[in-house]
C-alpha cells in the first residue's frame, strides 16, 4: 500500500485546479500585459482569481491581493516591507516567535545584521504563543509583529484574532504566515485584524511556484523584485497566469469543502494520535486543543527519525521528521527544540500530515506499520537498551 502522509510538505494538484489552469497553458497563453483582445482572456482570468482569493481570505478588496512565487516570497516581502517602513519612522524592532518557518526566521536574521532588533517569543511546551507575551514584547519602536497562523511541523494554531486585535489597538502592523492554515482553517483578515498574510498554493492542491501576499490597503509595500508594473507595481515579472488561476480554484474548492474535509481529517488525525500513543515512551508534540486538522507530530524515545522515515518509506509510507539527520545539520528541528524537548527526544520525531484525499484504510496501514518499525529500531538501539535497563532515565 502506498500512503502519502506528507501533505504539510506539499499536496497533489486537484482535478479542479488542473482543469482550471490547463486552458491558460495551451489556449489562452497571452501575456496579460499585452493590449490585444487575445491576451485579455489571461488578464480577465488573473482579475477573477484575485477576487476569488480576496473573498476566500475575507479581504475588503481584490486590490489587497498580490500574487507571488510562493509563501517564502510573500513572507520575505511582508517583513522586509514593514522593516523598511519602520526604519523611516525610526522604528527598528520586530516581534516574532522561535518556531516560525525559516522564510520568516532567516529574513529576521538578515534584518538583525542590518541593525534591527528582533524579539523571538517563547512558544511554551504546548507550541502556542501567549497573548500576554506578545503584549509584553511590544515597544515604542516596534514596526511589525509576525506570528504564524499554524505551525508547519507540529500543527499548533496560534491565537491570531487576539494578537490581531492587540496589534490594531497598539497601531502596529501584524503579519501572519498562513501557509499551513489557508484552505484548511477559516481565515478572515478583516475580523482577525490581520494586516499582511502569506499563502502558498501547493499546500492546498494548487501547483508549486505560486502564492500570494495579502496586504491591507493603507499599508505601503516595498518591492523585492523590480521590473515591470505587474501587481500594481509591487511585484515585477509576467504573471504566472495558469498557476494563479489554479491557486484561486484550489483555494475556493478547499474553503467550500472545509467543514466536511476537516471532519474527515480530524477523525483520521485523532485515530493516529490514539493508536500511536499506545507505543510506550511516545509523546504527542504540541497542544491538541489548538491544532490544524491534518498534522500529527510525535516523538518515540530511543530511536532516530531518519531511520524511521526510511523504514516507513520501505513500507510505502511518505512522512517526515525533525531529526538532525534529515536536515543535514547537527541539530534537530528548531521547532521541536522551541518546545523544550531534549535533543535526544527531538531526534526521534515523526510528522504525519494527512489530507482530505487520505482514507481510513491508509491510516490503519500507518497504525499497523509504525509500531512495528519503532519496535524494530528500538531492538537495535543501544540507547533503548540503556533506557530499558534503567541505566539512562526515560525522558518521555
Amino acid at each position, binding site marked *: 500500500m502506498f500512503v502519502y502522509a506528507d501533505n504539510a510538505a506539499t499536496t497533489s494538484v486537484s482535478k479542479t485546479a488542473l482543469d482550471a489552469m490547463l486552458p491558460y497553458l495551451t489556449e489562452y497563453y497571452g501575456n496579460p500585459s499585452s493590449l490585444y483582445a487575445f491576451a485579455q482572456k489571461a488578464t480577465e482570468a488573473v482579475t477573477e482569481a484575485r477576487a476569488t482569493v480576496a473573498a476566500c481570505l475575507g479581504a475588503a478588496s481584490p486590490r489587497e491581493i498580490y500574487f507571488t512565487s510562493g509563501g517564502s516570497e510573500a513572507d520575505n516581502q511582508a517583513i522586509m516591507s514593514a522593516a523598511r517602513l519602520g526604519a523611516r519612522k525610526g522604528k527598528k524592532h520586530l516581534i516574532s516567535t522561535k518556531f516560525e518557518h525559516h522564510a520568516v526566521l532567516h529574513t529576521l536574521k538578515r534584518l538583525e545584521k542590518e541593525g534591527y532588533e528582533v524579539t523571538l517569543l517563547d512558544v511554551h511546551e504546548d507550541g502556542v504563543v501567549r497573548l500576554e507575551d506578545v503584549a509584553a514584547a511590544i515597544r515604542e519602536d516596534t514596526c511589525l509583529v509576525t506570528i504564524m497562523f499554524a505551525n508547519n511541523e507540529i500543527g499548533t494554531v496560534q491565537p491570531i484574532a487576539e494578537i490581531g486585535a492587540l496589534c490594531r489597538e497598539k497601531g502596529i502592523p501584524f503579519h501572519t504566515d498562513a501557509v499551513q492554515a489557508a484552505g484548511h482553517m477559516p481565515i478572515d483578515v478583516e475580523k482577525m485584524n490581520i494586516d499582511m498574510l502569506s499563502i502558498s498554493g501547493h499546500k492546498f492542491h494548487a501547483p508549486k511556484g505560486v502564492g500570494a501576499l495579502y496586504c491591507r490597503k493603507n499599508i505601503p509595500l516595498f518591492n523585492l523584485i523590480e521590473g515591470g508594473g505587474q501587481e500594481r507595481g509591487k511585484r515585477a515579472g509576467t504573471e504566472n497566469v495558469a498557476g494563479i488561476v489554479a491557486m484561486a480554484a484550489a483555494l475556493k474548492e478547499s474553503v467550500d469543502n472545509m467543514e466536511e474535509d476537516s471532519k474527515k481529517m480530524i477523525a483520521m488525525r485523532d485515530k493516529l494520535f490514539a493508536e500511536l500513543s499506545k507505543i510506550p515512551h511516545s509523546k504527542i508534540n504540541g497542544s491538541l486543543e489548538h491544532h490544524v486538522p491534518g498534522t500529527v507530530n510525535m516523538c518515540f524515545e530511543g530511536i532516530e*527519525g*531518519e*531511520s524511521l522515515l526510511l523504514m516507513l518509506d520501505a513500507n510505502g509510507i511518505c512522512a517526515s521528521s525533525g531529526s*538532525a*539527520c534529515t536536515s543535514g545539520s547537527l541539530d534537530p528541528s528548531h521547532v521541536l527544540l522551541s518546545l523544550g524537548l531534549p*535533543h535526544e527526544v527531538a*531526534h526521534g520525531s515523526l510528522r504525519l500530515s494527512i489530507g482530505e484525499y487520505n482514507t481510513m484504510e491508509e491510516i490503519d496501514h500507518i497504525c499497523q506499520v509504525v509500531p512495528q518499525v519503532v519496535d524494530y529500531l528500538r531492538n*537495535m538501539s543501544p540507547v533503548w537498551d540503556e533506557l530499558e535497563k534503567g541505566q539512562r532515565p526515560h525522558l518521555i
Partner: protein
Amino acid sequence: MALYSDKVMDHFQNPRNVGKIDDADGIGEVGNAKCGDIMRMYIKVKDGIITDCKFNTFGCGSAIATSSMATELIKGKSVEDALKLSNQAVVEALDGLPAHKIHCSVLAEEAVRAAVKDYYDKNGIAYNAEEFQIHDCEHCSE
C-alpha cells in the same frame, strides 16, 4: 531512494550482525545521543582473531549501514587488521555515502577501535594510547 546507494539501503534494511554478545571480549561504544547517533560494537576474540562481531546502533540509515558493513569487514580478521579499518574503506564498501554522512563512517571506525581497546584493557595487552583517541565532535562534548 536516491540519497543512498543500493548497498547502503541493503545494509540498512537487512543489517548484518545486529545484536549483542553476552560474553564479549571487547565492547566499544562511541557517539552521543544528543547528536543523534550511538554505536556499540561487541567483539569475540580467539587466538588474536575476531571470531564474532555484533552491533547495536541508534542513528540514521547510514549509521546503521556503516555499523553493519564495519562488522562484516572485521569479522574473521586479526585484531591488528581490524585496527587498520579506515572509515574510507567502509565508505568504499558501501559504494559511497553523501558528504554529510561521512561522519557515520568515522563513528563506525571508532566503534571498532573502542571495542579493540576494551579487549586490550581487559586482557592486559599493552598499546599506544595515542592511537586510540576518540575524536568527539565539538558539538557532542558541549
